């Protein structure tokens, strides 16, 4: 599923514009616990979270997550946006809650990160 399709499905707006809106996302992980993200992540995946601190972007970078969606119209602070820009991790925000965002993407065919 492409990043642009994800944005359409979630009614999301880009906080940082992606270099490539057709970036291919293979799976998604929904969590506010960063250790769980580091445990369950898959490469080329999307993180759906309500947490907006700087270290969410760091966690994504470390785990090989290539985009982050913030739920309930949340926006990270400027330092997080700047770091995401440096690391080329597109950020989006959606009015959906985490349950709805996850459900919509799963129903549209985006699988969850597998537990390896």
């Amino acid at each position, binding site marked *: 599923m492409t990043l642009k399709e994800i944005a359409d499905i979630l009614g999301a707006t880009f906080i940082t514009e992606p270099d490539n809106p057709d970036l291919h996302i293979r799976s998604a992980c929904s969590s*506010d*616990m*960063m*250790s*769980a993200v*580091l*445990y369950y992540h898959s*490469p080329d995946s999307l993180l759906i*979270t309500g*947490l907006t*601190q*700087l*270290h*969410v972007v*760091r*966690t994504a*970078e*470390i*785990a*090989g997550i290539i985009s982050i969606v913030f739920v309930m119209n949340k926006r990270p602070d400027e*330092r997080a946006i700047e770091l995401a820009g440096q690391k080329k991790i597109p950020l989006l925000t959606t009015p959906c809650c985490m349950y709805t965002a996850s459900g919509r993407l799963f129903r549209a065919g985006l699988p969850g990160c597998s537990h390896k």
Partner: protein
Amino acid sequence: MALNIEGTIEGSSQLIGGDFTTAGEASTLLKVKLTELGVAEDIIRRAAIATFEAEMNVVIYAAAGWLHYYISPQGIRIRIEDMGPGIADIGLAMQEGYSTAPDWVREMGWGAGMGLPNMKRNSDVFTIDSVVGEGTTVEMVINFP
């Protein structure tokens, strides 16, 4: 990309307790170094995750600490020493889901009780030594295939 490692390449980073702004930078530096050396992506990810978890533990629980890494043609050795409260029961701390993190740490997305198990899971060799009131030392080895 072929491995481009001769001898042992070493590096260190100082870690500051409570500094969430720079937390993760040491792990990022290691990740960049491993990428430059042509290490396989899955190995880099394992090393970065194990190191990041260890780094966050120092930031969350300790006053300060050091991260040292040693990269050789055989693999990566990462040693993290902290001046923290120490761990009274290492067996309990290694159980998935066990955590002594206060609420403010959980509100920041940490303290799920997955940190130490995650470090062990991503290492080929994992050792931990801790003295209550003095600190904790974690050593992790990740072998190249």
